[in-house]
């Protein structure tokens, strides 16, 4: 664990950004505010690459937008070079996850956009764009339109567009997550190479990612976020020299440790690991947690994998992620869903099946559905509640609106909608209830089918 140490006042370059007591929430009528980010502090100095690592919904992208000046925090202050930030600042450039290229502009016109906004003269614009295009390996593509290019080439345009303004701070919002594995790796190594050779015209980089290996590969410092609300859970220093070797045992150990850190359960009342049947009434009252958006197929698939060779019921998360070319952000929600339903548990960067999980793997389709239904009713209060309401109603129908409203009191409409979709999909799989999309109503499945 010697690489992981809290970072305290490491004297580096000049202070660029200072975020203090930042809090982002949005107001919802007639109920408490929904908090996205809570009490976040961050300082960024010249010469470092800092990573914001966390699951989706941890507010890391929100923090990036706050630093960029695109978003004004609800509370707390952001200083850019000592001055309070008011709107996008000069000297900050951003690279987007979706590339955000203008499809009607050529590569060169896209790259020149930021310079044009600064009012740089045409000749200079042209030569600087040319330099940036060459630096990033896009020479020859000047007159191409983005839609003619592959994803990797498009993101190079995004990079060139950001670099051409010679920003002091380069913000990157999950820049490689929309690319395939090989392309992403090429772009990463190219970028790091330019950075360590000092050829990048930037002084500091802030990168948002959910890919643990990417963070360890690129960053000098990593802030790990926890979710709901987003907080900085821990801050880690990565002191390996560039270029870094993924296979280095110390590198692997660090990745392992971060997995453990990210799957560590929040300090809250622990749930029973083994589901006991018939205790529906005693379900823990957290009706309003966002559910991991995971399909039942993925859950079943993961459980079968863990149960089979070579894992035999317990798997190392990084190894599992590598074997299936999955990123932490894809793998962890599945595991979390399993943990929520009492089918599996996280332990120190590993995931292990519970007895219920083993039972599920060994069961046939119908039996699986029953096991799943029981687990869902026991562990997902919202599902239990819907089921109960439906059973009480004379026509066994209930509008979905009221449940959605209830969710929206505690989370953003997007998350509420996603959670509703999960509830519907799980409910359907477990044959607990049906859902009529046109009427936006939950319905009870046929009585004779579900009486056992």
């Amino acid at each position, binding site marked *: 664990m010697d690489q992981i140490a809290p970072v305290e006042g490491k004297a580096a370059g000049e202070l660029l950004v200072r975020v203090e007591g930042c809090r982002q929430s949005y107001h919802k009528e007639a109920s408490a505010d929904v908090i996205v980010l809570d009490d976040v502090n961050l300082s960024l100095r010249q010469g470092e690459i800092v990573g914001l690592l966390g699951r989706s919904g941890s507010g890391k992208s929100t923090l990036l937008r706050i630093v960029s000046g695109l978003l004004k925090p609800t509370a707390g202050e952001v200083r850019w070079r000592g001055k309070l930030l008011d*709107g*996008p600042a*000069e000297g900050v450039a*951003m690279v987007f996850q979706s590339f*955000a290229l203008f499809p*009607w502009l050529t590569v060169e016109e896209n790259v020149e956009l930021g310079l*044009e906004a*600064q009012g740089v003269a045409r000749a200079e614009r042209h030569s600087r764009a040319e330099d940036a295009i060459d630096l990033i390996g896009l020479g020859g593509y000047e007159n191409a339109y*983005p*839609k003619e290019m592959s994803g990797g080439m498009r993101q190079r345009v995004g990079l060139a567009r950001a670099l051409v303004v010679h920003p002091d701070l380069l913000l990157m919002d999950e820049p490689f997550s929309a690319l395939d594995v090989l392309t992403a790796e090429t772009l990463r190594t190219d970028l790091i190479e330019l950075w360590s050779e000092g050829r990048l015209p930037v002084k500091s980089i802030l990168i948002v990612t959910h890919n643990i290996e990417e963070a360890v590969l690129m960053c000098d410092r990593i802030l790990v976020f926890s979710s709901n609300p987003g907080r900085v859970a821990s801050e880690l220093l990565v002191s390996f020299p560039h270029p870094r070797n993924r296979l280095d045992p110390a590198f692997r150990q660090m990745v392992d440790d971060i997995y453990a850190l990210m799957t560590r359960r929040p300090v809250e009342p622990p749930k029973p690991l083994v589901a006991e049947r018939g205790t529906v009434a005693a379900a823990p009252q957290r009706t309003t947690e966002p559910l991991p958006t995971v399909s039942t197929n993925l859950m079943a698939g993961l459980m079968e994998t863990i149960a089979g060779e070579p894992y035999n019921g317990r798997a190392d998360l990084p190894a599992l992620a590598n074997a299936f070319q999955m990123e932490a952000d894809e793998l962890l929600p599945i595991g979390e869903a399993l943990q929520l339903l009492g089918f599996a548990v996280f332990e120190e960067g590993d995931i292990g099946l519970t007895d219920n999980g083993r039972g599920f793997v060994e069961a046939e389709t119908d039996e699986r559905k029953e096991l799943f239904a029981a687990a869902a009713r026991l562990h997902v209060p919202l599902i239990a509640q819907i089921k109960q309401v439906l059973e009480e109603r004379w026509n066994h129908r209930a509008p979905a609106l009221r449940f959605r409203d209830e969710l929206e009191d505690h989370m953003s409409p997007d998350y509420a909608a996603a959670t509703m979709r999960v509830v519907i999909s799980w409910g359907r799989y477990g044959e607990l209830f049906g859902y009529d999309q046109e009427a936006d109503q939950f319905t009870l499945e046929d009585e004779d089918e579900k009486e056992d």
Partner: protein
Amino acid sequence: MTILAPPAFVNGRRMPNLWDGAAILCVLGVLVLVAHAAQGTLAPLPHPNATPIHLDPRYLPFYALRTTMRMFAALFFSGLFTLTVAPLAAKSRRIGLILIPALDILQSVPILGFLSFTVLFFMSLFPGRVLGAELAAIFAIFTSQAWNMAFSFYQSLTTVPRDLDEASRAFRLTTWQRFWRLEVPFAMPGLVFNTMLSMSGGWFFVVASEAVTVGNTTFLLPGIGSYVSVALQQRNLLAVFYAILAMLAVILIYDQLLFRPLVAWSAKFRFEMTSGGGVRDPWVLSLVRRTHLLRVMGEALGDFAARLGGLRLRVSVFAGLERRANPRVVDVLWFGFIGILVALALWRIVAFVAGTITLSEFGHVVLLGAYTLARVAAAIVICTLVWVPIGVWIGLRPRWAQLIQPIAQFLAAFPANLLFPVIVIVIVRFALNPNIWLTPLMILGTQWYILFNVVAGASAFPTDLKEASANLRVRGLLWWRRVIIPGIFPYYVTGALTASGAAWNSSIVAEVASWGHTTLTATGLGAYIAEATTNGNGAGIMLGVCVMTGYVFLLNRVLWRPLHAYAVRRLTF
């Protein structure tokens, strides 16, 4: 066919709300006001120095040119209106709240009914000069184009992709740069498509607005529309035929020289990251791209536009004002202002209604509206029964579709009122019942919308679904019911709602038709308005127009929009 986007006015399944009410009152109030102002000047207007219309075909090219010029003048103003009003509505919540429902209602107002008022209004601005009538014609075309273009632009402005919005802000583009680099390009495909629809409708209005009779005075502007109207008076069938030929030529030229290239060019602005299949450039665009001189000129123009769009101007009249002042105070002031406006409108309407309209008259007009409604409905049903099977047959055969599609679009642009005389002659000759046989006139020009939308829908039907249904041996009625009708439904709805909206408008010219001294009249709201216009009965026109607006508006909200929303929700791939 690549040109297919829903017309701009069909978003969401929003039901009428309070703001619609306010907007209705404001629009009606303005109409009443115009009618009132015009009524004073209704009787003795100095006859403009009208140029006589010659039926010699040698004059036709000149008339065609005049008609086309009018068209483009109106288009210019519509563009100006779109580029200024839509951003205001999109950027300022307060303005948008009232402006958007107002535009929505204006779309439902049958402009043809209002022609006499606008003619009088503009004539009184320029007494004794042709300019007044000229401006009135241009205004009529403008009102047939501007609303849906503005709507389309507004919709694009409110759906700018978030990442591009953030990128333009992060790179600190000024409002001016943002407008020309992001917002206008993003809106371009929709704008071009809606402009095309507008222009297609516009030919109809330009022809109708060139010859306007108010009371005893007929204003004739040199143009194809006047030519036809004079030909009708003189029972000169050959001249009508010449006019039809001239119009065909004009639309063909405008289609080939302007719209095909424009649509092909606007594909560049489509917001999608996959490059579309190889759609061949229309010959004009290839000509511009390949001919050195034209290319240099085009590039110079593009360069100039790029420099202009790149200027670092900050246009923030409203944003600045709104940000500086206390939002509560501004809200109170603004909504107070609108409240007063609505109250004023209400007062004018009440005063007008109380003074001129009796309840029985109102009831009579609503009943006439019901007749016209029945006619429109019958026309749509018949067109559906005819064109849907034909459209599907064509759409499923790509080679046919390629051939037919441009023809259908071309026919949609052709002003059907030029063809009226032909049908009228048939009705007169065979002494047919005008109540039934005038109905086809209403749908004559707009049925093509149904055809080309259905063809587009059937061509876009996914191949794998076609194969799957063939593999499952789904045939006959089952195939229509389960496979192709749901597949083309969203397209069909788009076409049908366009057709029905236009049919209402054309009822004003279609329910009354004349050939020499014979006048055929069908009982209906359109005929009522037309009659009131000939009699110079301002209150009658007002009432008719308002009732028709109500019908169109309700029909849109109660039938077409929910249908469209349902189709988009459930039946798109």
